[in-house]
């Protein structure tokens, strides 16, 4: 067994030191009788690889076909140096940095992550990460209720349906009311008209789940006039290279999903939840925070701080029960942002938008296809003349991953049955677009 260093002579010598005659004797307090398990025995590395390749072969990888999938999970290019760096054992196989003297590497990268996220969102502070965008959204809504001491959360119909569902689940026993407005593909819901002194927060997403971009400034002003917090979700952080960030439009808490900048989709997990807010709300924030300090010699160093908010100190009075978060994915996010830099990040966003504009124009020219949003970043909804789920299957049969049918999230809304989300990124080239335009034309003819 290649992962177990002890030899039989080692075990014998150690048992004799302990003063028992067998390893099994160490388990004497367990219930008597050996359970049996219907599971295979140990396998060589070669055989495990074969078995895992067999699973992989039954999937259609996005790397092998034109892919236009998004809906909160985006496929971007991962620089080779990024994957190398996150596989350095000193990062990969370290625990949470509880011993700061021997964890300055992890701690400084968390500090850089917090700084980058705050800058991108145009907010004052960011935490060390949450599990994903959906759980970060739920934590933001709960935090808004703590800050305002109000109990009514209003969620826009443009927020990712998983974020809405997770928020409803996670807050269901806290005596709060989570009101989710109907899905809003074209951005017509009247949020400002709904703002009032009863609300703890309004939760929006920009770009919205259906792709449209919205100026949040007037909504933020309306919220603040009534003591309501504006929570903004960003499911595609690459947009922040080109689009005015929520903080600049007046958001009080900004959450997001960092996966698109951190690495491959990996079937949707693990991702990394982004969480940023204003300093005045610091004590109500969930999750870990890394802060700057000095060591015994007066040199700058970093530590986990303000832990009196957290479960290991505060127990049932903590701001959240989160412990392990998404450290390594946050590191990948940070390294990618550092590789990109200001110019690279802006360029990445420009290329995404240009490709999406080109694709939207071409799809809109197909008979029966209408692009829904006027303003968008790299993703937009289109309406089709027949159910999107069938069209997507037809495209997949022709080796095109053409889009995500909205009915996958909202099966109960018949009026959304013909709607599909389409994404173009820097990975989308001319031949991919041609394949989709041709394939969609055929599927609809």
């Amino acid at each position: 067994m290649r992962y177990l260093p002890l030899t039989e002579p080692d075990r014998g010598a150690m048992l004799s030191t302990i003063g028992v005659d067998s390893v099994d004797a160490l388990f004497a307090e367990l219930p008597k009788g050996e359970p049996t398990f219907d599971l295979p025995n140990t396998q060589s590395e070669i055989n495990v690889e074969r078995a895992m390749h067999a699973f992989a072969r039954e999937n259609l990888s996005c790397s092998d076909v034109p892919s236009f999938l998004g809906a909160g999970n985006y496929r971007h290019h991962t620089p080779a140096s990024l994957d190398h760096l996150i596989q350095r054992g000193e990062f990969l196989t370290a625990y949470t940095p509880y011993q700061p003297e021997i964890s300055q590497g992890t701690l400084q990268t968390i500090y850089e992550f917090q700084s980058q996220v705050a800058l991108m969102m145009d907010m004052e502070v960011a935490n060390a990460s949450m599990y994903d965008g959906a759980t970060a959204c739920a934590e933001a809504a709960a935090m808004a209720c703590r800050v305002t001491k109000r109990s009514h959360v209003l969620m826009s119909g443009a927020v990712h349906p998983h974020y809405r569902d997770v928020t409803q689940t996670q807050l269901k026993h806290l005596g709060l009311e989570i009101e989710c407005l109907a899905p809003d593909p074209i951005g017509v819901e009247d949020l400002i008209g709904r703002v009032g002194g009863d609300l703890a927060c309004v939760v929006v997403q920009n770009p919205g789940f259906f792709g449209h971009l919205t100026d949040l400034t007037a909504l933020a002003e309306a919220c603040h006039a009534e003591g309501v917090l504006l929570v903004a979700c960003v499911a595609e952080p690459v947009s922040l290279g080109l689009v005015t960030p929520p903080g600049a439009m007046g958001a009080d808490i900004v959450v997001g999903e960092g996966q698109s900048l951190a690495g491959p989709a990996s079937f949707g997990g693990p991702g990394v939840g982004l969480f940023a807010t204003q300093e005045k709300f610091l004590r109500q924030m969930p999750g870990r925070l890394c802060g700057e300090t000095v060591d015994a010699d007066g040199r700058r160093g970093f530590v986990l701080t303000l832990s009196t908010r957290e479960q290991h100190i505060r127990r049932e009075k903590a701001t959240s029960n989160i412990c392990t978060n998404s450290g390594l994915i946050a590191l990948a996010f940070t390294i990618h942002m550092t590789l990109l830099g200001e110019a690279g990040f802006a360029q990445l966003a420009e290329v995404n938008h240009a490709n999406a504009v080109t694709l939207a124009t071409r799809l809109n020219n197909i008979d029966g296809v209408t692009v829904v949003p006027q303003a968008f970043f790299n993703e937009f909804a289109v309406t089709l003349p027949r159910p999107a789920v069938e069209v997507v299957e037809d495209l997949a049969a022709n080796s095109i991953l053409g889009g995500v049918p909205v009915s996958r999230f909202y099966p109960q809304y018949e009026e959304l049955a013909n709607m599909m989300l389409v994404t173009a990124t820097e990975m989308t080239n001319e031949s991919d677009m041609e394949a989709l335009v041709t394939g969609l034309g055929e599927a609809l003819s």
Partner: protein
Amino acid sequence: MTEYSNIETTSGNRGLSFEEPLIFELDSQDSSAVDLDPPSHDMDRLGGLRRRLPVGLPGLSEPEVVRHYTRLSQKNYSIDSGFYPLGSCTMKHNPRLNEKMARLPGLGDIHPFQPESTVQGAYKLMDTLATWLKELTGLPAVALSPAAGAHGELCGIMAIRAAHQAAGNDDRKVVLVPESAHGTNPATAAICGYSVESIPGNGNGRVDVDALTTRLGPDVAAVMITNPNTCGLFENEAKAIADAVHAAGAYFYMDGANFNAIVGRVTLSELGVDAMHINLHKTFSTPHGGGGPGAGPTVLSEALAPFAPLPFLVHDANGLRMVEHSGDKDAPQSFGRMKGYHGQFGVFVRALAYMMSLGIDGLRQASGDAVLNANYLRVRLSEELTPSYDGICMHEALFDDRFLKDTGVSTLDFAKSMIDEGFHPPTMYFPLVVHGALLMEPTETESKATLDQYCETVLALARKAKSGGMAEEFASSPQLTPRRRLDETQAARKPILRWKPEPLKHAAE
């Protein structure tokens, strides 16, 4: 030695130990380490929302970025580089086969919303993982989507509350938690709307069963118990506790943080467990990554299975199908969705590769070696240290600070002194039930030679502490690290949580 550690260098670097500034402080050339073809056109459909101000990021080339993060990585202790006996954390070897498999394009580069016909392999992998977890625990259902241990606890307690609601018993408002529990247990119960009451220990490091059964009643919704517990001991009356809990109409949640000790040796069905989360990033070898990602699949008993969260897989005529909505005929009682997408798939791949590598025989050997290693530490270190409880321990050995009495050396100082010797300190001051705790979990992936070197080092440190007059030296450790003790009070009193450009910084002060 002290003389050498005081040598000043011009650069601030010290041999292989480099001083490394923040990326924001590196000379920014306004360059980028990423090349992209320019956009094909500049038509804009942003609706007037084009960003007006720069983000404020530095621009560096690839070699500069690689060197920056390489140097930072070298300031970390890790399981790859040394012994990491951090109690309750199961810092075992992370096989690189797992990493290689997670990066296969057919597993890493698949999208959560592809047509189901194109991801049957991913579904089969998840279903296979579920089969292993159910078989190893003897429970009939598993919710795969929780993202970490605390998230798995939330899953279990949410399922318990849903079951009480379905049975019309939602007036149960109390969850009982032993005083030795992890902080996540009471925090989780509170999120589920329960008040938390603490149950005392019995003096032998285990739950006081009489106190527990006396407290049970019609207001108690659940009992959460870590087993093996945070003192490293098996709760040998677990089944009796479960029976009493069930007789009182409550559910029995087992915190699975310490499952590594008992894999392949007992099933949860034998222990009367209704729900338990499994930390794939502890027991099943997926890397901790400096604080995640984890995965906390939660096994559920027959009584709780109908309330499992969305999504989950079912077998139907076309193969496997993901049930994603509460309106689905297969999910009439699910308590809802608790995580985006389908769970921590990348972690599932790694954990399954590990389980298949070890097999059931290897997993049983692994728990045996983990317990053997812990007992070896317990016996050898008892020569100078004070074990908190007599007798055999499970996968971790608990000591308290009686051996440091009158030395002036605290648990913290003693633990920090191990760092200069090249070892990661054990968990300190946890569990709270003994004074000045040192909780050591060696895991099964350490050799006898490593354990012997560690024991000899810790015994020597203990003798040194006891020799008298050493308090100051211990208090000033570690000396040989990139940074010495950090001022945590200052960090909390005047929080500086991000880099700021200079003008902004002045404006804020």
